[in-house]
């Protein structure tokens, strides 16, 4: 083969090796997929807590454990380890939901908003205000 052929082939192989080194192999990909499921669960739990507070009228201190027929209850435990997700309502009313993640790779865009911190594996989000009842006429 010509020298340019070797150069281009070597460049392609180097890029493939660098990509493996950067994003990891099949094991890393499986861990990322499990983390995506966990983050999806945290997002569902956040929406559930908002529903409990705004629709069912549950008090803040009971939001992490309460259930209601008015709000569909999502999974509360990690489906792979069985460990419960960490849910917390701070004194300022912010919801903090955490999972034990296996990777620090950015999750898909719809899960990775500004509320997600890949270092801690937590979503910290202030829920919208409760809807106010319409004034009597």
């Amino acid at each position, binding site marked *: 083969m010509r020298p*340019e*052929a070797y150069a281009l082939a070597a460049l392609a192989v180097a*890029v493939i090796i660098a*990509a493996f080194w950067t*994003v990891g192999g099949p094991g890393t990909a499986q861990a990322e997929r499990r983390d995506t499921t966990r983050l999806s669960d945290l997002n569902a739990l956040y929406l559930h807590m908002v529903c409990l507070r705004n629709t069912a009228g549950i008090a803040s201190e009971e939001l992490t454990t309460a259930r209601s027929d008015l709000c569909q209850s999502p999974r509360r435990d990690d489906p792979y380890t069985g460990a419960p997700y960490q849910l917390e309502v701070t004194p300022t009313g912010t919801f903090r939901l955490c999972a034990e993640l296996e990777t620090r*790779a950015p999750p898909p865009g719809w899960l990775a908003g500004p509320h997600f911190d890949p270092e801690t594996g937590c979503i910290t989000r202030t829920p919208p205000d409760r809807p106010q009842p319409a004034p009597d006429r």
Partner: protein
Amino acid sequence: MRPAARLSAFVQDGLRHGHSAEELREALRANGWSEPEIDTALGDWSDQGLRLPVPRAQPSGNATEAVLYALLFFALLAVTWNVVALAFWLIEIWLPEPGARRGYGATRAMRWSMAVLIVLLPLFLLLYRRAEKAARSDPGLRRAPWRRRFGAVTLFLAALVLLGDAIAVVFAALIGDITAQFIAKAGFVALVAALVMMWFRHFLTDVDDAP
């Protein structure tokens, strides 16, 4: 009869009647035929002193060759495209721009490019070796039309990529958008396009050397 066929028939008759190639050239030139047209017509026939013009070997193609070069072209496009795409992702990770977040599904897209390269790079090298081995064993195959088309289209596309890259660099400079990440990306594209041009240039130049 088409002009080229008339010209070729004239050369054949001229050689058969004992005229030299130079005499025929002068006659054709005097009647307004261009040098490339005359070269082509004279190139169709060889005067071997038999008083009978001998037809020169002409390029010919077949379906196997068409499939080989079509596959080679597809593999080259896929390999170069995905090498560049993968390198762009890596550059974005290694040289992040301030405030930028890695886009949606970055690792998934990278793994797709890796999969394409793992399958198509060996296939491409295998097809290339096969084409070169065939051309070496039968030099007449260097004139094969599909080989010339492959070489011409590849060089044309590589040249377009180099030009586009140069335009992008000048434009980025003019709008003040030159960053380390941009320079690395533009440099990588130029490197790949230059290697492709250097590699496949001989697909056209070999034609002149072929018997």
